[in-house]
């Protein structure tokens, strides 16, 4: 994919020669990304416990709202936070990334908490109280939290815009993504940009490899006799627990959204934003819906195969890597791959020059979400159920329709919702593709360049509202299912 016609040669690797700048880039990148992962872990772990295990009022609401920080692109959050408190520097970047991506930690950890078997927990409590239960459950839950933190690390490492934006006052701190962007913007330095991507890609690959290893080692099916854990009554701790959840949401969601609402000002900003960007909003929603449904449909069989094989680290890594690649590299790869003739067909007219190339790019970038969510759901199904269906004479198709699909539906829906949500906020990978020009996020970033604060804020809030629809639907579905 990343065939470089004019400027790539081994000579470009000279940009990797260790010097003080390379060490500085490494130190800054690890500082910001590692700090963000730690912060997300500190927020996400207790949040996950409280919304998945504790007996608290409005638990479904906290679950729904806890996903929404993912809908606010980190640069928009950085602008909001700078407007609120003038945050700057690496600590500011750590805060923005930690707040924006903490849902990764709590979502994965909550899923692990929900899969603690009630009987195992009750036996542990009988044997040694809650301390014994914690000793048994933490090794079960912490790997999921670690996977979430590694994802935060990866997303923070690939981001160029936030560290750049937060270096305005005080000393500039450069990170790897900064270096890649600088080399990319030079007309003749695409090869250098690709060479400069090697260290962050190595770090990203290492982090993803560790996450996948943890996932493989700790995933298991629930078994037919699985009993979900009982909600834990917090007693006197309920009020502090709710205060903690509210504080986390206040910091990660309400503060940036509140600032945006303040910036948007009057209703006329929303009317102006919708008038100017309604076509872009419609395109985004159409692309997000199509990408979510197609990516999910296309990943069902690979996910089932992966769940049954219980290995395939290389395939997992391959499907996860596009999610974390610097967007610029994906853009260049797609331009060079699709803007040409081949096999007697003009791909540039029929694919590159149309929205189809954008859809393909989204499928490539975000298929990891439905793949892993669906594989996880399939993996949790006791093979004995399918075997029983086979014994009863059901064809594979009917077994899939009657047994596997209904039981894995929550995983499919979660994967589709994540694709929808990430397409709605994607900008980096489509920024260079002309057909990707008319999306709502593109319009927002166009406004950012020219400092149109009220329209930026209004359109962001509109975009968050439309992005929240599938999350709200999934949340309501979970609540209804829980009630049933």
């Amino acid at each position, binding site marked *: 994919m990343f065939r470089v016609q004019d400027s790539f040669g081994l000579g470009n690797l000279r940009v990797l020669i260790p010097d003080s700048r390379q060490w500085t880039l490494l130190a800054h990148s690890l500082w910001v990304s590692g700090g963000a992962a730690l912060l997300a872990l500190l927020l996400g772990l207790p949040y996950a416990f409280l919304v998945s295990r504790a007996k608290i009022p409005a638990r479904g609401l906290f679950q729904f709202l806890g996903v929404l920080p993912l809908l606010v692109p980190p640069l928009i959050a950085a602008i909001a936070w700078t407007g609120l408190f003038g945050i700057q520097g690496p600590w500011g970047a750590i805060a923005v990334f930690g707040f924006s991506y903490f849902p990764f930690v709590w979502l994965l950890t909550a899923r692990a908490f929900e899969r603690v078997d009630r009987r195992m927990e009750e036996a542990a409590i009988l044997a040694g109280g809650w301390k014994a239960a914690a000793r048994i459950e933490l090794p079960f839950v912490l790997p999921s939290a670690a996977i979430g933190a590694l994802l935060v690390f990866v997303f923070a490492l690939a981001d160029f815009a936030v560290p750049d934006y937060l270096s*305005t006052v005080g000393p500039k701190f450069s990170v790897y993504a900064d270096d890649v962007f*600088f080399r990319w913007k030079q007309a003749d330095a695409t090869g250098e940009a690709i060479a400069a991507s090697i260290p962050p890609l190595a770090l990203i690959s290492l982090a993803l490899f560790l996450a996948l290893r943890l996932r493989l080692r700790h995933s298991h099916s629930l078994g037919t006799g699985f009993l979900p854990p009982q909600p834990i009554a917090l007693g006197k701790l309920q009020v502090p627990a709710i205060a903690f959840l509210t504080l986390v949401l206040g910091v990660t969601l309400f503060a940036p959204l509140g600032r945006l609402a303040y910036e948007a000002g009057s209703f006329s900003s929303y009317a102006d934003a919708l008038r100017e960007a309604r076509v872009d909003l419609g395109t985004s929603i159409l692309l997000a819906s199509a990408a979510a449904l197609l990516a999910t449909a296309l990943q069902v069989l690979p996910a089932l195969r992966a769940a049954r094989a219980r290995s395939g680290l290389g395939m997992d890594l391959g499907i996860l890597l596009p999610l974390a690649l610097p967007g610029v590299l994906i853009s260049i790869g797609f331009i060079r791959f699709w*803007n040409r003739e081949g096999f007697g067909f003009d791909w540039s007219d029929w694919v590159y020059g149309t929205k189809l190339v954008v*859809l393909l790019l989204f499928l490539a970038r975000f298929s990891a979400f439905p793949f892993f969510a669906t594989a996880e759901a399939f993996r949790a199904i006791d093979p004995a159920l399918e075997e029983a269906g086979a014994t009863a004479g059901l064809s594979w198709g009917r077994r899939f329709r009657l047994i596997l699909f209904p039981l894995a539906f929550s995983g499919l829906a979660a994967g589709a919702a994540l694709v929808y949500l990430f397409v709605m906020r994607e900008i980096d990978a489509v920024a260079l593709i*002309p057909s990707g*020009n008319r999306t709502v996020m593109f319009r927002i970033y166009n406004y*950012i360049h020219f*400092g149109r604060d009220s329209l930026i804020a209004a359109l962001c809030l509109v975009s968050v509202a439309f992005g929240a629809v599938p999350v709200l639907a999934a949340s309501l579905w979970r609540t209804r299912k829980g009630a049933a």
Partner: protein
Amino acid sequence: MRLATISLLALVAIACNKEPQVTIYCSLDQVYSEPILRDFEKQSGIKVNAVFDIEANKTVGLVRTILEEKSRPRCDVFWNNEIAQTIRLKKAGVLTHYNSPNAKEIPQEFRDPEGHWTGFAARARVFIVNTQKLSPEDLPSSLLDLANPKWSKRFILAKPLTGTTLTHFAALFATWGEEKTKQFCEDLLRNTGGLANGNAHVSKLVAKGEFAFGLTDTDDVQARIEEGAPVRAVYPDADGDGALVIPNTVSLVAGGPNPELGKKLIDWILRAETEARLAEGGSAQIPLRPGVPHPARVKVPGDFRSMKVDWIRTADEIDRRSKYFQETFTR
């Protein structure tokens, strides 16, 4: 699954729309450029496929896309909001010549002798001054004031890594020479209160009073004035080199799909009415033709001293100095 199919069919239907059209890549603010392009559609009946640029790309995104598409160009016309990157594209061989009949009245210094680009509607590089922080008697007057300890930590400018600030600093190398410009950069770095990531950001920080003044573009000053901020523009070096004037440029892309439609669009953009409209609009662009009507708030060359620049050398300096700027301003 049914919804997925419908969505896919809708996208294919969009993809199959084969109406003849002209494609323009445009880095001027969409809010100001889009109405001009839509009026061309109405007047000519030719559909315009307009692609705009964004902050994440620091205005070099379209330049890079044009270069990446060099083997199979998808774009007919490039409307750049500055000039140096256009000259770099000419050097890369991706532009072709077209002398629009509507460009005749534009001064020669803003036209490529070989017809690969034509300048129009410009911005000037000026100081944005917070009038609550500085009195009229005590204002910076020269670019060299950025290196003067008197103003230490009281001003801000954007990093000269992209956009008009990069063009400005490259023009200094082309005009002042290496020794003087490097010394200026070193002194400025010691003196500045901050390095913003864009000119809009500079103007906002000055408008908020976080800095007494900053170096930015006239359109950013105008935007803050319209928001009611206590700021004004000061055109530097009235007794010296003058303020740098950076025009928009429009060019025909070599090998574009519809060159004849592209020429019609260029003719439309280069009308005097476009300059008047951009002067009237929120970005207060400076008309380059003599005699174009403009509001009093828009100063044109003659109202202030403008800097004489060799644009070809300036574009060369961008290539030559990019790494120096990166290493110096992102230490």
